[in-house]
């Protein structure tokens, strides 16, 4: 197990380097001039040259990358934004909790939808319930996320006025007129629904398929042959096995989503990592882009590792191999 961990961490390091290098390469292939953007609309050529020097953009690309790495590893700093010289660390860490709130709330909501729909559809295949469930799945997967967001905003936020339309309230602090858990949740209701719909659909379908497969396994027949009531067969034999793969998928999806639920955050104007990523790309703000990339990569690596360890722990075939 220890050896496995070391190997995973080494690969994580390799992955990290690869991802950040690729980001650099893409950035410098794009024909745009961050220096000009930084210097401002009406900058003179001289000022642009000075800006370029100041931002270190006149150095060769590998050197810039090396400096970036050095700064990250030694100073634990992601540098400063090209556009407004803000500390990237701080900006990223302010945006992260917003995305985290969206994602974790969304996860709970989507599992609350997917589990019952998936399991009940599997238990009564081809019934009205099953067909209804699969219709839900079809809609959930087909409907574009931003469209869902806009519809919800219009129908519930604007027309019915039940929830606020946009904006984010911090969980703990009050700033700009709202704060505290109640406000926080209130503002996130529509975003959660929007974010969760797609995943709920995907997971419902997967849970249904897994449950149906598991119902046909020989050991389920053995349990029935022992005289176990259907509820026990379901609980103790079917679900425990059918839901194992869901654990893995959940871990991966959370890791990815933490990188920024771009559509949802844009529609609802939530200042999370997704919105930050979009903004920094459109302003060619390399340090900020790298900052988001680094953070996201770290999240994905950590969550994948957690999931692998968790899976090894709950499946005795892997644990005791």
């Amino acid at each position: 197990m220890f050896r496995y961990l070391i190997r995973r961490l080494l690969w994580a390091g390799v992955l990290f380097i690869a991802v950040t290098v690729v980001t650099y390469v893409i950035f410098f292939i794009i024909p745009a001039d961050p220096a000009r953007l930084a210097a401002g609309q009406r900058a003179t050529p001289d000022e642009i040259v000075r800006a370029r020097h100041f931002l270190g953009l006149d150095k060769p690309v590998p050197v810039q990358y090396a400096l970036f790495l050095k700064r990250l590893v030694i100073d634990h700093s992601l540098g400063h934004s090209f556009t407004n010289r803000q500390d990237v660390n701080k900006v990223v860490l302010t945006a992260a909790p917003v995305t985290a709130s969206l994602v974790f709330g969304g996860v709970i909501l989507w599992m609350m939808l997917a589990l019952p729909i998936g399991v009940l559809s599997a238990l009564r295949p081809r019934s009205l319930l099953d067909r209804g469930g699969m219709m839900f799945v079809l809609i959930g997967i087909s409907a574009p996320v931003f469209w869902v967001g806009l519809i919800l905003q219009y129908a519930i936020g604007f027309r019915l006025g039940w929830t606020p339309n946009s904006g984010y309230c911090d969980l703990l602090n009050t700033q700009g007129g709202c704060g505290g858990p109640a406000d926080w949740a209130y503002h996130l209701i529509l975003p959660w629904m929007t974010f969760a719909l797609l995943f709920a659909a995907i997971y419902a379908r997967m849970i249904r398929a897994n449950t149906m497969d598991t119902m046909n396994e020989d050991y389920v027949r053995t349990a029935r042959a022992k005289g176990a009531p259907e509820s026990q067969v379901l609980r103790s034999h079917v679900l425990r096995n059918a839901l194992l793969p869901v654990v893995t998928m959940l871990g991966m999806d959370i890791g990815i989503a933490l990188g920024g639920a771009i559509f949802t955050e844009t529609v609802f104007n939530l200042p999370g990592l997704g919105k930050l990523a979009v903004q920094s790309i459109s302003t060619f703000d390399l340090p900020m882009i790298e900052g988001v990339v680094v953070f996201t990569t770290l999240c994905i690596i950590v969550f994948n590792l957690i999931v692998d360890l968790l899976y090894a722990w709950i499946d005795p075939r892997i644990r005791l191999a």
Partner: protein
Amino acid sequence: MAEELLVVEDLKKHFPITRGIIFQKQIAAVKAVDGVSFTVNRGETLGVVGESGCGKSTMARCVMRLLDPSGGKVIFDGRDITNISQAEMRPIRREMMMIFQDPYASLNPRKRVGFIIGEALEVNKMGSGREIKQRVQELLDIVGLNPEHYNRFPHEFSGGQRQRIGVARALAVNPKLIVCDEPVSALDVSVQAQILNLLKDLQDEFNLTYVFIAHDLNVVRHISNRVMVMYLGSVAEVAGRDQLYSAPKHPYTGALLSAVPVPDPELGRQRKRIVLEGDVPSPINPPSACRFHPRCPRFHEGVCDVVDPPVREFGEDHAATCHYPLEAWPLTDAQMRGAGEPVAS
């Protein structure tokens, strides 16, 4: 032409087990085949029998160079094919063909039967398109299928018919040797009989040489001239068919013979069965010296687990690898256990 079509000397196939953080180091090996030697003469059938994990399928694949041997020699028709390159192997492949166990998995479901049977002919450029088609239809007839079904897909045939297609495929290029890897294990008894009769007829008609691998001793006896018994990667005993079944020398062969249920209620119940203890051990860590010693009713401590058993000859063409070969047959369980001195060669 030499009598011996296939000579295998001390064949070994080890699958490495590696461990390591960055650089994988080999820490152990699955010794699937560990020193197997035998010969097959032209026109005869060598039956290879053994239970799961004995290495018979791996051995077959090494002989056909579908796997590369880790050691030893394979000499086919006088030529050493153990280490030759895949390119050099290609022309030899049309002389040795294989029939597989699972009639459902061994035929490509997306190809028509005509293509499946004729593919080897096409690859080896053995005739024009029309000639190949003619040959394929001939083959379908030979194996007892309707030549009109040339354009059908595998799923349109039953298990037994699919196995016949497998046989036709093997026959297409007129091979010298056909290796049959459990060809009837997945078939019902009545269908099994059809395929066994077919294989026998074809052998007579085309003077084929078979290596017939199976775990069912009854089936092996019906079709083989000589039989080889394998256990955990090595050969326990080799003998002519009648000899092996009436006067086995290796305790494992004796246990196998006594374990096979006989479809005769009186005989079956009268027979004193020898029941082995325990399960087949793992080929990763085979027992020391004689592989069979942990389960052998004749186990003598200090001999069987320390000294490699010698290959003893019993008349022409009967050899067993054992310190205490059986003196007679049948033996009861008690008689099996009561061996005294190791038999002198």
